[in-house]
């Protein structure tokens, strides 16, 4: 704790400040954990208890009814979800893994090249321009990007005709395929900056040493640089994983076919049905729409929504546990927030 001087901590003023700081930090930790606790406890409650006022802290009779209803949701309410929930899980997994496999090598190689290989006088201005464009908020480029997925390489609703003919330019259409999610995420500006920051810190002499040792440029990258950089690979992979797994708006725009939709879209659909049916209030629960009715009858309410939330959050959490050691090292190196 470098916030406090190492010497003189035993002075009364310092002691008071030290305890205050401790209390504050514990408060912060508890505030962060409360939502998770509520999610878990509510997911284990039966429907009535989940909506009881005042809420109970922990269910009197814990039950897994919410979990089983959600898992079998496509059997019970076919009109709500056409595919079993596992299908959406799979879709999300494919998109996430696809993005990681594409994006991490592409981004890290680009960062390595910018950091260590390209050394001309135009490098710096180009780099700033490049980063500048990538720094635009995604919402600004949403519509052009959407149009691009329909008529690549034209960001237009309809491709123009080849001059002098009535034939339209041939275009590439990835709209409504999982590629529409994977390809645009193939390059990540924030990951690029993380990689570049790390590679900038590697002394040139190591690369030069490997060069005079006879290593080709790619061999140096693969055998020397990558093993040195595992923590930053862990951090970027984690960010990419979280980013794609939790993405909602972009898949909503480019994915129409329910069979290839990711989990986020499915969850949104269910929760919309709930709120549309008014199940969030006991008074109107009886008048639920036909799609959701069988579920509500079998005892679904807030408990189900909490299950969905947990299902969505769990993979990212598991990834964090596995890569914990490298991630923390990476965070230390990067000085990330």
């Amino acid at each position, binding site marked *: 704790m470098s916030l406090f001087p190492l010497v003189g901590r035993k002075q009364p003023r310092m002691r008071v400040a030290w305890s205050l700081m401790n209390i504050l930090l514990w408060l912060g930790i508890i505030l962060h954990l409360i939502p998770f606790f509520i999610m878990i406890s509510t997911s284990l409650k039966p429907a009535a208890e989940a909506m009881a006022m005042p809420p109970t802290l922990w269910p009197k009779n814990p039950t897994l009814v919410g979990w089983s209803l959600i898992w079998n949701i496509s059997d019970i309410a076919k009109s709500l979800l056409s595919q079993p929930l596992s299908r959406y899980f799979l879709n999300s997994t494919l998109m996430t893994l696809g993005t990681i496999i594409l994006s991490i090598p592409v981004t890290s190689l680009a960062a390595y090249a910018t950091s260590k290989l390209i050394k001309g006088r*135009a*490098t*710096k201005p180009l780099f700033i321009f490049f980063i500048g464009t990538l720094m635009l908020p995604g919402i600004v480029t949403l519509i052009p990007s959407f149009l691009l997925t329909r008529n690549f390489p034209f960001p237009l609703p309809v491709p123009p005709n080849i001059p002098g003919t009535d034939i339209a330019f041939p275009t590439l259409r990835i709209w409504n395929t999982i590629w529409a999610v994977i390809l645009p995420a193939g390059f990540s500006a924030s990951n690029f900056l993380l990689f570049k920051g790390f590679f900038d810190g590697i*002394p040139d002499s*190591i690369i030069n040493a*490997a060069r005079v*040792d006879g290593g080709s440029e790619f061999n140096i990258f693969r055998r020397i640089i990558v*093993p040195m950089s595992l923590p930053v690979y862990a951090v970027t992979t984690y960010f990419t994983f979280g980013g794609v797994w939790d993405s909602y708006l972009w898949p909503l725009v480019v994915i129409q076919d329910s069979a290839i939709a990711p989990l986020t879209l499915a969850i949104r659909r269910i929760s919309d049905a709930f709120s549309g049916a008014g199940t969030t209030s006991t008074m109107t629960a009886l008048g639920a729409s036909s799609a959701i009715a069988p579920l509500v009858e079998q005892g679904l309410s807030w408990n189900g929504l909490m299950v969905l939330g947990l299902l969505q959050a769990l993979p990212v959490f598991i990834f964090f546990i596995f890569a914990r050691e490298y991630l923390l090292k990476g965070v230390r190196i990067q000085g990330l927030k």
Partner: protein
Amino acid sequence: MSSVTVENVSRQYYPPLGSSETRPVSGLVNVSLKIANGETVSVVGPSGCGKSTLLKVIAGLEPADSGRILYDKVDVTNISPQARGVGMVFQDYALYPSKEGEDNLSYYFEVRKKTEEEKQQRLKEVAELMGIGFDLLMGRQVDTLSGGEKQRVGIARCIVRDPNVFLMDEPISNLDAKLRERTRTEIKRLLKKFGITALYVTHDQQEAIFMGDRIAVMRAGQVVQFGTFDELYYSPVDLFVATLIGTPPMNVLPAEVQGQSLCIESVEMSLPLPPELVDKLPAGKLRLGVRPEGWLVNQAPTGGIPVVVTRVERLFTERAAFLGGQIGRLFVNALVALDFPAEVKQVFLTPDWTQAHFFAADSETAILTPGVPDLF
């Protein structure tokens, strides 16, 4: 091993587009050097003088804008660093951090697709060469090694591949003083034992003198002077070389030749010049350079320059002491006997004219230097 010839090599750096500075910065200006087979050449100069750039150009890590690099008679100017077969030792060791000591050495065999037997054979030879305890370093993770140990691995990594030329970029400047002394002896012995052609870059003139058979002094991208220690020490081409070589540095006093005498400006004092010098020196302003051992020190006022003694530094190993004092605002150093009394507060210094250097006041090039003294 081969000889290395650098012919009129220039290298310029362009500032990034859009920055206020638009003129190119000179890394190297028309540099020519010839390193004979088995010779060690030290390159010394202040930071930013281009000495590291020269090393990189010879290794092929930086291209030369013009000029040629030859290994023996082979022009390697356009050959990639991977194919030049040089060994390089770096100031920050540049070990591959995620690997163990031995893996650092074996990377070369890996990329050259050598067999395991060849590798083991060669590693064993090198471990023997590197001396006691070296095999222990091989099994350890790089970040657990001390600075000296890292540099031993770094040097071994070069030796293992039997390079054409050894290039060393301040290899010991990150080490402790005592370790530095031992390591430089070790390096020198290895170089001599195997007749290695080597280029040794350093900012420390003492190290350059120790390591180099010949020494190249660089400044602002140019080789100012290239020669043996004696040439640099007794016949420096300009004030820069004169003050760079030798510790403590040469004392420089602005002076003016007035007829038969030399007027020291900072104290407005005239010293009679011996007749043989009067003929050789142009009248007018110049710089008088006197090495610490080139003073005649008197405690009684016998016509010398009065100097306020600020301190006496006793060097037991040299059986001598350096006297530090001030002439006006200028610091001067003079060599005195080890038992020079500490209570003396003023001395009078006269240059030993046979050892005095004279430089032009404006261009700072040498007008007259003593040359190697005749001992007998």
